[in-house]
């Protein structure tokens, strides 16, 4: 009957192993692509093997004892009254200490390894945690945009990086001075920046700047999300990292530096009008929070390249940019789509929504 214990316990262990090969998990720490995630997994797996050995010894030992010394019917005996054995007990105090010492050696060396400063050629990105979406500023001197005065390239929801180059992230929760529409400051709360396949998480703490250094050598899209509870829509504060090969990266940078595309389509033109000017009837203005090119504010995602191919998702990266219906639903009533979203419902008419969608889709 005690076998069932082992069954339950064994299942948990087996499940752990299965997880390594679970094919469908798309945001898994066990399928790392970038550094340091690869190193972190290696260390974890090494410790898991040690833990597994201890697990087998201890749980196996308990199982053995329980079966071997079980009371058998019809056999009355009084067990020998042993009270202890100091030598044994000292032994099993020291043995785990030694095992743990072994575990701590690579642990400590890697703590310091991860804390080292980035190499000089690293790409610098400032990550900003808002409620509930991520903003990214490229803070290197050559990563600027602007028809007059230059400012850092700024994007939201999807962080675009080159492959084969070290990336140095500075994590800030200042929210860029974001204001709610009623003028109160946007809450600056703690977030945690995490892309499991690329790097372990670091908290984004108001008032201080934490850092992550990572590198990815394989082009592709990697998903992540905020890992520290940050209020109502914590569960929907997601992001993607798109890693581009150096050639594609160059093209992406040039496109960003050129500023937003010129609008020619008449419907899109109409949308631009709506976007750039206050809405009729005193309903507010898109540019009070959003920016396209030189116009607008930085309290909400920068939309200059909303429909650029790497900008795969919007509104905390929960909906695909290509999903017209999702985009329309969002514009109609953000709160109905993502409860508590800071973007108000502007009572946009269907015509206004169609025009705005056309405009946003023209921003490549």
């Amino acid at each position, binding site marked *: 009957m005690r076998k069932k214990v082992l069954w339950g316990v064994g299942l948990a262990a087996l499940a*752990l192993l299965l997880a390594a090969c679970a094919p469908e998990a798309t945001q898994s720490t066990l399928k790392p692509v970038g550094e340091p995630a690869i190193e972190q997994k290696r260390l974890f797996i090494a410790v898991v093997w040690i833990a597994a050995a201890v697990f087998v010894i201890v749980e196996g030992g*308990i199982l053995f004892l329980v079966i071997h010394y079980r009371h058998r019917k019809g056999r009355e005996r009084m*067990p020998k009254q042993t009270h202890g054995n100091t030598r044994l007990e000292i032994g099993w105090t020291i043995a785990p200490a030694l095992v743990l010492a072994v575990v701590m050696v690579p*642990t400590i060396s890697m703590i310091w390894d991860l804390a080292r400063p980035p190499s000089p050629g690293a790409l610098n990105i400032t990550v900003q945690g808002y409620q509930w979406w991520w903003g990214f500023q490229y803070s290197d001197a050559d990563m600027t945009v602007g028809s007059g005065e230059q400012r850092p390239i700024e994007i939201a929801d999807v962080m675009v990086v080159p492959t084969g180059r070290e990336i140095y992230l500075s994590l800030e929760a200042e929210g860029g001075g974001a204001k709610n529409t009623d003028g109160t400051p946007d809450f600056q709360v703690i977030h945690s920046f995490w892309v499991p396949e690329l790097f*372990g*998480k670091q908290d984004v703490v108001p008032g201080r700047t*934490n850092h992550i250094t990572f590198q990815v050598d394989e082009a592709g899209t990697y998903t992540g999300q905020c890992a520290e509870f940050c209020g109502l829509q914590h569960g929907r504060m997601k992001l993607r990292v798109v890693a581009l090969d150096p050639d594609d990266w160059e093209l992406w940078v040039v496109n960003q530096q050129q500023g937003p595309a010129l609008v020619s389509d008449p419907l899109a033109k109409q949308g631009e009008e709506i976007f750039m000017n206050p809405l009729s009837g005193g309903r507010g203005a898109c540019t009070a929070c959003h920016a396209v090119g030189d116009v607008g504010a930085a309290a909400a995602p920068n939309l200059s390249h909303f429909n650029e191919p790497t900008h795969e998702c919007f509104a905390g990266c929960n909906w695909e940019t290509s999903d017209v219906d999702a985009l329309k639903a969002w514009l109609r009533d953000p709160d109905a789509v993502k*409860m508590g979203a800071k973007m108000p419902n502007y009572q946009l008419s269907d015509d206004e929504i169609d025009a705005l969608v056309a405009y946003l889709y023209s921003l490549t």
Partner: protein
Amino acid sequence: MASVSVTGTSSRGLRRPSSLTGFWSWFTTVDHKKIGIMYGVSAFVFFIVGGLEALLIRTQLAQPDGTLLNADQYNQIFTMHGITMIFLFVMPMSAAFFNYLLPLMLGARDVAFPRLNAYSFWVFLLGGLFLYSSPFLGGAPNGGWFGYAPNSTTDPSIGMTFYALGLLITGIASAAGAVNLAITIINMRAPGMSLFRMPVFVWMGLVVQFLLVFALPIITVGLFELLFDRRWGTHFFDPTAGGDPILWQHLFWLFGHPEVYILILPAFGIISEIIPVFARKPLFGYQFMVFSGIAIGFIGFGVWAHHMFAAGLGPVANTAFGVSTAIIAIPTGVKIFNWMATLHGGDLRFTSPMLYAIGAVTMFVIGGLSGVTHAVVPSDYQQTDTYYVVAHFHYVIFGGSVFAFFGAFHYWWPKVFARQLSETLGKVAFWILLIGFNLTFGPMHILGLSGMIRREYTYPESLGLTFWNQIATLGAFLIALSVLTFMVNVLRTHIRKQPLASEDPWDARTLEWMTPCPPPVYNFEEIPQVHSLDEFWHRKYVEDEKTGTLVPAQAGAAPEHDDDHTEAGHGIHLPSPSYWPLVSAVGLPVIAYGVLYSWWLVAAGALVVLVGFMGWAVEPSVAED
């Protein structure tokens, strides 16, 4: 002690309660056993409520894009689940066992301060009810049990103010209870009961009370700062005004990690009592068990920042706390090995208490091992704040503490209620619980490693998390089935009214079994003289020092307890029932509501507290005849 001459309370128009039985006696009782039962019943009710919240959580997460709960409801429910299970279930359930058993195990008639004991209970219960009034008054706490600022200070809902006030109230209950029990253990031991003749359960009780006494002031500071930030616009955690969000984390976890041992050490005590009884041999390495418990208590204050490895404290802090976290695994390991050595060579009887005790050890080992992986800081950057951590602490707190509680229910039920729970139902419930528990929390390891974060109210199908979430939900309902089986067992036992076959059904070892079942209000007719550890056992059996074999003691060689307890107990002066603990306790939630709504209420509540304390102070502990 109370030799101060006072006029009888009757002269002030309010007659002192005297009845020791009946419905109303529960409100005025100062008997540690009745208070223990009230703690237990209240904590169990909160366990059911917290469990229903867990089922809501699991049902919401059974499907991707779940719509049972919206984000707001989900955040309130997971927060209340955590607060309930920790502050309103595991802590008071431990208090229930400590209250009921410590005086009995020590050979005392009651705790050191019986009225303070009643006060602790009422404050806890009213604090719990205060917290649960929040959903009806604008919203339950919604910032997690850990209440990280500035999210907790800036959240527009009223919930986190309830959180700060509610936990301050229950904190008063815990602090008063801790002082009381610690003094009881130190001062109220029967003659001959030296510290190293105390049962391990009592020792763990002592360590827990000290942990509480030292840890609670820290969270109290934090909660007051949180309250002031929320209610009166201070800026303790606001970096734009010179505050620091990390300050809250230090305060919270400097309490929060000792809290983990406050939750688990009582279970270690319970396991250490149950296993020797059903192995029919003494606990292996008693001293090592005691000292490892004390060591855990000390080291437990030096590991808090392992909750903050990703907060950016820097490599020095992360190294130090990684090492200290690894170190605390050592005394914990000692306990596991000593329990194994106790099993070794025993004559193991798998009654339901024993099954739960061994279940607790095996499950705790899993939680302990996943805990060691947290000490590996760089890999913890990946696992922290994921379901891997949820799996870990449920293996520790549910697998350890809750399994041990169920073992303790079955073990001490005959002592407390003079009825024996059905062994069959007990075993059935155990196996359902074991399977359900592992199905629920085992897959959470995988979910966490697969990138599922904690506290998210929903997840998209594209993350590939659906399958294991469904398994976890299935397991959660099996746990519910097991708890239901236990409740049926309790009901059935009490409807049948079958008398106990024996006053010592388990052939137990410790003093509490020398009293009748249930123990009379004065516990021991005559305070026993203690000669050894496991006193009761040694009165029943004589050990041959050389061979280690046991022979039953000859009749008459050891004093048997008196079976004729109808006549007994005259002339023993016990503390009399009192209204004042309840009155003083009622003032606290009134003050708390006042903080939310009106200064007048604060004044009224303060007046009630003051009157309560005054009445209490001038009332003699034993009513004049």
